[in-house]
């Protein structure tokens, strides 16, 4: 198994994801620079957090045109597992692989804290090691994490079981308390919290391990 980790100019959680996958879980990884077009040999792709392209224009707005993401979209179309963390979630919505948009936190504050989440795995491959209704703790660190989508679309997402992670105490004003979203097929997950920062008890929690373990098949 080899996991690809996309790196844009301004990504800053790429090495944390490598550390979590290789260091904590023993899985080989390969960095994918934003101009990379070769995804051969990869079993999953992670789009990490950070400030790709400085968050210029909108978070993820410029990253979505990176050459590597054309290949990642095709990979996702073929059923390949794709995980977008924080800025990665923003990129996935700008790319259209997930619906909706991430906007400025309601409080205008950059939130840097541990938050409780409720998991509804549904068909999402990435959450199969969690049980329905389980509550976990993961760190968040974002200024633009408020999920926004039209009410009719939100209802449809809920009906289809695509809202797979909800905030227990909504910190940023996301509609529907959405913290993480899956595509219908279940191979693409976007979430604002950072599972890679919860894989080693030395960093305060290990609730993220079971999510990243799924990258390893």
């Amino acid at each position: 198994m080899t996991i690809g980790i996309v790196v844009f100019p301004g990504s800053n959680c790429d090495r944390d994801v490598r550390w979590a996958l290789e260091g904590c879980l023993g899985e080989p990884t390969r960095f994918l620079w934003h101009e990379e077009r070769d995804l051969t040999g990869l079993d999953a792709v992670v789009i990490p957090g950070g400030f790709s392209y400085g968050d210029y224009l909108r978070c993820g707005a410029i990253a979505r045109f990176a050459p590597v993401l054309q290949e990642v979209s095709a990979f996702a179309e073929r059923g390949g597992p794709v995980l977008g963390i924080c800025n990665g979630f923003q990129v996935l919505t700008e790319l259209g692989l997930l619906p909706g948009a991430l906007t400025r936190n309601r409080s205008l504050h950059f939130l840097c804290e541990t938050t409780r989440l409720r998991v509804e795995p549904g068909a999402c491959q990435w959450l199969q090691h969690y049980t329905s209704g389980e509550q976990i703790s993961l760190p968040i660190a974002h200024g633009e994490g408020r999920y926004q989508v039209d009410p009719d679309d939100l209802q449809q997402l809920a009906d289809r079981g695509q809202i797979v992670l909800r905030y227990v105490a909504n910190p940023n004003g996301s509609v529907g308390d959405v913290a993480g979203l899956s595509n219908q097929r279940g191979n693409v997950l976007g979430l604002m919290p950072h599972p890679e920062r919860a894989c080693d008890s030395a960093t305060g929690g290990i609730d993220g391990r079971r999510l990243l373990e799924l990258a390893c098949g």
Partner: protein
Amino acid sequence: MPLFHARVQVTLRPSVLDPAGEATRAAAARLGVHGVQRLRIGKSVDVALEAPDLAAAQAQLELLSDRLLANPVIEDWSLELAEAA
């Protein structure tokens, strides 16, 4: 090729919360400007574009506005376009 000047206005859709606008509206009161009923913050993008003719410029700017400058999930956009003097 002729040069065209465009100004694209990007605004938040009415249904989208604008906390930055709300914070700015509160600050207006502190400045002594009361009675601000609504304050919403958008973006203005100035573009100078080379294109064979006005129709081509219009088409390219619509593409640019719809796919890059604005996110249609949360934003509306409008375009003013003229050939450079």
